């Protein structure tokens, strides 16, 4: 995951932004051509006039040899989403299914799950992927959404660049520089499910050498729909943070930032004990708190040449009704980029991470051995981007080298070829080999389940034991993409993929039942473990057209198709988990959006979404719609009314474990934003 971090700054300017010279997705209006009102302004006036900026996303991605979708600040605002997972619904190829008020199942190109095991998530270069159970706890990734600059969603293996667990994608969340967040911002809202929230930020500085911001946020989110009336899933957060940016002598940039949070999130879990009552459904509360601090130094030494060093520390405390995690993570990364012989852009770097976790046993059926562990990760990478034909054909080759406490040295090579026959058209193909490294979930975790049966008066349990033989899950991914800008107002992005997976996570029964006396009391156990027993393929494509018939009206759509074929390998003892994994991701997803500016001050946004059924999980398909009406009543005052999931009182998106399933409610909220 390391790379990712560093790459955030270095790579984007390097690959995505340098792309530059691509036409803007914007029509020139007659007014703009016939007279330029700015022409009469003095230099001072010019420097202070506000301009209308258009989304740069299509320009940035047109010459990128990966399936990238950039969610801009404007997109975030206009979506009316109040959390990062909800924002991610905007990106094609991403499946976001809300489990309840504070939990989601998220996947990219398949493999959706509560912790998004195969997706690497970064916030300002800080990986939030935990090696504990492998994945991202979405409910603790909260931000003042107004301060997010953009979210880059990369579908497909980002192996070389992005590190080990970016098997199926990368979600790279980038907040604004504190140079761009001067002044006071207060954003408050209330509604039926988002019962109330308050975000406040203050920023200042001289805009050149030193800038800063501080923020505080809090929210209370009510329960979703529970047919049985057990409204357990309320969610509260109080959070604060800061960011400081220093710049010196025009080439050194130094950033320090940090966050601290304290949350409670209601949940229901199955609590398993070897003593009676053996298995119990507990409606309880997750107590979640933590903080992080990150420092980054970057020196720009010239065109295509820079050095960056970054370090962060993260503390996490997680108390759930049946399990706990107290974790300290340290991470250091180094990155260097330079040009060689004119046509080679070389990037290399290395990093190390140490994550120390302590997991005291809360219930006897769920424990880690040893209860305190330190996970380490060493990684390095080398990449060459070769300009084969100037501005027309470029080849990127590289590999990542990785070693963790659970693996030997492993390589993750990738090759990408980008052909841009014109400035309005690009075609790319890529091959990547990527890995999802073993985590404590497979190597140190003991998870018991009570079967409900008794044999000779003894309770019969099954338990997944730690599997010291669990190895990395592997992917060979083949991708291709095509992008074209037609005229100035129509943009089209197509990406297709064929992925071959092996050694995928399986649930194996490894022996017959036997009488076990420890943990006490005596019981009968069916031994099981997580293995590498599944293999298979996914194939599909995402189609994402965008049309701006007028500069005040933007229409976007996306269609994502996914076909997963998984099976157990020849010698696997898997109990038949493949159909469930296959059936956890929708085959078809459709999104259509209209962003309409009635005037510059009045915006209306409408979104329609269709998600096909999750057959194995018995979740039917659904269609729903979101709407947002916003009025910038004054330059410093904005009012908006947002409705989400409007087409029905509630609908189901993903099963709750344990059940019954939670319906996702129609939700309405009003918002007031004050900024000056």
């Amino acid at each position, binding site marked *: 995951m390391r790379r990712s971090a560093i790459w955030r700054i270095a790579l984007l*300017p390097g690959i995505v932004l*340098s792309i*530059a*010279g*691509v*036409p*803007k997705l914007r029509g*020139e*209006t007659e*007014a*703009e*051509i*016939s*007279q*330029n*009102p*700015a*022409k009469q*302004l003095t*230099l*001072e006036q*010019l*420097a202070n*006039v*506000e*301009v*209308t*900026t*258009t989304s740069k996303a299509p320009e940035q991605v047109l010459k990128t040899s990966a399936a990238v979708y950039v969610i801009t600040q404007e997109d975030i605002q206009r979506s009316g989403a109040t959390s990062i997972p909800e924002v991610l619904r905007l990106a094609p190829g991403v499946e976001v299914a809300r489990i309840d008020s504070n939990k989601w199942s998220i996947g990219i190109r398949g493999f959706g799950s509560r912790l998004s095991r195969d997706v690497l998530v970064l916030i300002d270069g800080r990986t939030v992927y935990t090696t504990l159970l492998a994945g991202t706890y979405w409910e603790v990734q909260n931000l003042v959404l107004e301060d997010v600059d953009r979210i880059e969603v990369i579908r497909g293996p980002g192996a070389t660049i992005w590190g080990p667990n970016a098997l199926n994608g990368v979600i790279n969340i980038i907040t604004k520089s504190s*140079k*761009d967040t001067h002044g006071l911002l207060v954003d408050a809202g209330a509604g*039926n499910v988002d019962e109330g929230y308050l975000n406040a930020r203050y920023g200042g500085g001289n*805009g*050149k050498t030193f800038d800063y911001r501080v923020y505080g946020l809090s929210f209370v989110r009510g329960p979703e*729909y529970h047919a049985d*009336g057990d*409204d357990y899933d309320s969610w509260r957060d109080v959070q604060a943070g800061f960011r400081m940016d220093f710049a010196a*002598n*025009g*080439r050194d940039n130094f950033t320090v930032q940090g966050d601290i949070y304290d949350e409670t999130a209601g949940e229901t879990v199955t609590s398993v004990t070897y003593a009676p009552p053996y298995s119990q459904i507990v409606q309880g509360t997750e107590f979640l708190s933590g903080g992080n601090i990150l420092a980054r130094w970057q020196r*720009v030494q*010239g*065109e*295509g040449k820079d050095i960056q060093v970054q370090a962060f520390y993260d503390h996490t405390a997680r108390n759930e009704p049946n399990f706990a995690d107290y974790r300290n993570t340290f991470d250091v990364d180094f990155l260097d980029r330079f040009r060689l012989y004119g046509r080679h852009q070389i990037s290399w770097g290395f990093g190390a991470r140490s994550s120390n976790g302590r997991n005291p046993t809360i219930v006897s059926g769920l424990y880690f051995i040893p209860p305190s562990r330190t996970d380490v990760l060493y990684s390095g990478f080398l990449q060459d981007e070769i300009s084969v034909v*100037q501005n027309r054909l470029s080849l990127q080759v590289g590999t990542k080298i990785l070693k963790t406490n659970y693996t030997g040295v492993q390589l993750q090579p990738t090759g990408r070829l980008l052909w841009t026959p014109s*400035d309005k058209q690009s075609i790319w193909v890529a091959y990547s080999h990527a890995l999802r490294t073993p985590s404590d979930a497979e190597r140190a975790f003991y998870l018991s389940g009570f079967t409900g049966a008794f044999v000779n008066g003894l309770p019969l349990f099954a338990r997944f034991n730690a599997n010291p033989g669990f190895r990395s899950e592997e992917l060979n991914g083949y991708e291709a993409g095509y992008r074209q800008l037609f005229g100035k107002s129509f943009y089209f992005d197509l990406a297709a993929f064929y992925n071959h997976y092996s050694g995928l996570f399986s649930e194996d029964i490894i022996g017959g039942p036997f009488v076990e006396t420890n943990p006490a009391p005596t019981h009968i156990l069916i031994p099981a473990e997580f293995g590498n027993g599944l293999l298979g393929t996914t194939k599909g494509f995402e189609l994402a057209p965008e049309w701006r018939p007028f500069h*005040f009206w933007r229409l976007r759509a996306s269609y994502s198709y996914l076909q997963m074929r998984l099976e157990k390998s020849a010698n696997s003892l898997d109990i038949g988990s493949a159909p469930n994994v296959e059936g956890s991701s929708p085959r078809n997803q459709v999104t259509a959006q209209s962003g309409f*500016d009635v*005037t*510059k001050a009045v915006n209306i946004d*409408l979104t329609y979404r269709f998600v096909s059924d999750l057959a194995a999980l018995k979740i039917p398909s659904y269609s729903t*719609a979101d709407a947002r*009406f916003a009025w910038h009543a004054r330059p410093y005052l904005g009012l908006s009314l947002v*409705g989400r999931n*409007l087409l029905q*009182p*509630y609908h189901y998106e993903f099963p709750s474990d344990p059940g019954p399933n939670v319906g996702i409610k*129609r*939700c*309405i909220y009003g918002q007031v934003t004050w900024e000056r």
Partner: protein
Amino acid sequence: MRLALQKPWCVRTLGILAALMPLLLAYPATAQEVHPTEAQVKAAYLYNFGKFVTWPDHRAGDSGSFQICILGRDPFGKVLDSTVSGEKINDKPIVTRRISRVQEAQACNILFISTSDESRLPAILPVARAMNLLTVSDMPNFANHGGTIGLVLQEEKVRFEVNRTAAGEAHLVLSSQLLKVASKVIEKGTPGN
């Protein structure tokens, strides 16, 4: 407790929005133009910079016109032409030219380097310097990388950074007013000089 109660209200809201749509479509586009566009402001800068820079008296490529040249992909379209049309700098009519190689820039006064040519910057700048051109670009860190004036977007405003050393190397004299308005003034030589 159940949400179903809110249904009539929501459906009505959505209905109103849908009903408004056709009306909104008819709304005149010009009403949007509260602010100028980024391209308009950048074009206005290109026009204005000429007034605050003095070129050496006897330039090799001097012509009867004041030339603003765009190297690489043109991000302005007709906006730049309409901005400078009929205008003069130092009594010379302003002309715009699109060029694909810096070698064609001999007669130019201002050279706007498009982001499409960012990768070729190390080759472009020394030539532009020798031709006494005022180099301007909106690519990131342009002034830092040895360009003379870099246009940067800051908080919805287009500001500019000046590399005074680069101007000196091209024998251009920048007025104090230009330097005063600049968001940043850099005193640093061009790489490789």
